[in-house]
């Protein structure tokens, strides 16, 4: 089995399970069926002709997770470092084709030193065939990548093309060029962990969606995710028995009246979801926006919510990327989207402008506008400027927009607006500071409420905070057979 005792000992020394142990830990008991166990490579160069590589360094098969069928492959680092040759790639593409044909989720466990150099361009061809299938399957079946070892060079593009990437501290390593190449070519010294470790991808690059401390914790995260998502884009996620939220904090006590004071938006989500359960996606990356799955009356819901506790909940390049991709995921897989809004606008700064906040910010607008799943928005407090439009406003075809009495829908906050609208009065006043205060109050009284927007029909109803869950549930019930027609096209050209 695997690459022999010695290689398996090495794997254990690195704190890693073997490919087979991983599959057994992840799948339902006795559910795994392996295919192509006896596959052999046919390479003839550089001494390969005399080498026997068991299963050619990858295990493929089918099984179930929480009784849901899945296809899986797991690269076996104990066999030639999990290197990818032609037969190795053929096994992976075989199970990918199978997953796409049968419309079941695909899980790939990556633990590989990279291309099998001895097989030359054939290994590159293998990667290309995998990437192509990742792309075809995108939006049809859920694709999950689990990085449990090195995943370097061209190989990292497969996870990048999939829906969710799982990483584990001190085990996952993802990069295009490794530390040794960087040192020899560029003279920069950096460790593998600093360059492309789990935390880097979970917090800085946004390449990873779930971060765990151990492989077993990672497998639990995958099982939970699988419970929330449908098996293909032709299905809805399986419903669970409905249950009420836990009796914890009261929703009406969480949000401070003063729009400048923060709170934890996750507390709000937990007052809404069944059993107060919430699976947060990309928790460490751009935490000024929260995305994730919960259930309401047993049905899976995708949540997109501003987080006032981090950067005041602003939209910026990273949070826009994060939210937009999640919205598209939910739309592709028939998951209704609930948006919880409390944000002061876009993050100002030359660094943001130069990083392309225009095209990044546009992604949210594009994703919401295009999404045809039921879309419900709750405005808790601030909804200012371009951010108000972006956060699933009526104008982008939200199906229902509810506002709390504390909502402020305006072009900007009262301070900024008063300074512009009443510039002259403030400058010419005997006591400019007093005048400024007065004018800010005047603006607040007039615009810092939900009724101006409600008068235009941009908001459907002003609701009491305690009614939030029941209103969302009703809105989703009404939206169940929602049908929308978009103009025919091959595909749009979204901002990238």
């Amino acid at each position: 089995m695997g690459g022999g005792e010695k290689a398996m000992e090495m794997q254990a020394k690195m704190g890693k399970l073997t490919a087979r142990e991983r599959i057994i830990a992840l799948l339902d008991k006795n559910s795994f069926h392996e295919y192509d166990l006896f596959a052999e490579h046919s390479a003839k160069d550089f001494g390969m002709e005399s080498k026997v590589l068991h299963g050619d360094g990858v295990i493929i098969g089918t099984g179930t997770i929480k009784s849901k069928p899945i296809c899986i492959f797991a690269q076996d680092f104990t066999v030639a470092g999990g290197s990818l040759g032609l037969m190795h790639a053929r096994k992976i593409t075989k199970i990918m084709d199978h997953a796409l044909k049968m419309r079941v989720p695909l899980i790939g466990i990556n633990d590989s030193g990279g291309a099998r150099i001895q097989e030359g361009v054939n290994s590159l061809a293998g990667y290309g065939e995998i990437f192509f299938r990742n792309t075809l399957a995108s939006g049809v079946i859920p694709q999950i990548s689990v990085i449990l070892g090195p995943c370097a060079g061209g190989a990292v593009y497969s996870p990048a093309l999939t829906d969710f990437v799982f990483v584990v501290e001190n085990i996952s390593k993802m990069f295009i060029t490794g530390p040794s190449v960087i040192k020899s070519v560029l003279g920069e010294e950096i460790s593998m962990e600093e360059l492309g470790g789990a935390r880097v991808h979970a917090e800085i690059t946004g390449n990873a969606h779930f971060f765990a401390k151990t492989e077993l914790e990672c497998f639990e995260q995958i099982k939970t995710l699988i419970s929330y998502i449908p098996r293909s884009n032709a299905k809805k996620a399986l419903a669970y028995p409905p249950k009420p939220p836990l009796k914890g904090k009261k929703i009406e006590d969480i949000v401070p009246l003063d729009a400048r004071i923060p709170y934890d938006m996750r507390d709000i989500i937990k007052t809404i979801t069944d059993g107060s359960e919430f699976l947060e996606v990309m928790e460490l990356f751009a935490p000024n926006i929260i995305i994730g799955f919960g259930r309401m009356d047993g049905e899976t819901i995708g949540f997109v919510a501003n987080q006032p506790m981090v950067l005041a909940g602003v939209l910026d390049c990273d949070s826009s990327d994060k939210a937009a991709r999640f919205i598209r995921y939910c739309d592709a897989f028939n998951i209704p989207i609930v948006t919880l809004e409390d944000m002061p606008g876009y993050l100002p700064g030359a660094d943001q402008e130069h990083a392309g906040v225009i095209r990044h910010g546009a992604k949210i607008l594009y994703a919401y506008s295009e999404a045809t799943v039921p879309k419900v928005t709750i405005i808790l407090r601030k909804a200012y400027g371009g951010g108000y439009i972006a956060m699933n406003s009526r104008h982008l075809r939200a199906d229902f927009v509810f506002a709390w009495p504390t909502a402020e829908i305006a072009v900007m906050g009262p301070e900024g607006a008063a300074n512009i609208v009443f510039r002259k009065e403030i400058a010419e006043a005997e006591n400019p500071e007093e005048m400024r205060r007065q004018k800010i109050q005047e603006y607040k009284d007039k615009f810092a409420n939900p009724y101006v927007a409600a008068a235009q029909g941009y908001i459907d109803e002003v609701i009491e905070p305690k009614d939030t869950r029941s209103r969302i549930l009703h809105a989703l019930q009404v939206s169940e057979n929602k049908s929308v027609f978009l103009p025919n096209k091959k595909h749009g050209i979204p901002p990238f």
Partner: protein
Amino acid sequence: MSEEKEWKDLIIQGTVYKTTYTRKFEQRVNWEAPNDNMLYSFIPGTIIDIFVKPKQKLKEGETILLLEAMKMQNQVRMPFDGEIVKINVKKDEVIPNRYLMVEIKPKK
């Protein structure tokens, strides 16, 4: 994320919000207008040859030095007619990215 009780200020359009910062936000760098008289390395690499001396007058397009990186010998050329003011690198020196290699000034 750990529970941080110490809030920081973030000003957006005149309003001061209490919140926390992300590591990325704290590490953002301020933008500086480029100075045409400072020639910085655009990639980390090795100076494999220097063809000029301080006070030497050069025409636009003349090669100042060779910076080898990624197996390429990059010619760093004079961007305009002018003079070499100061050379901050030596032959065979390995330099990081954005390193001030040469200071120049335009012809009067």
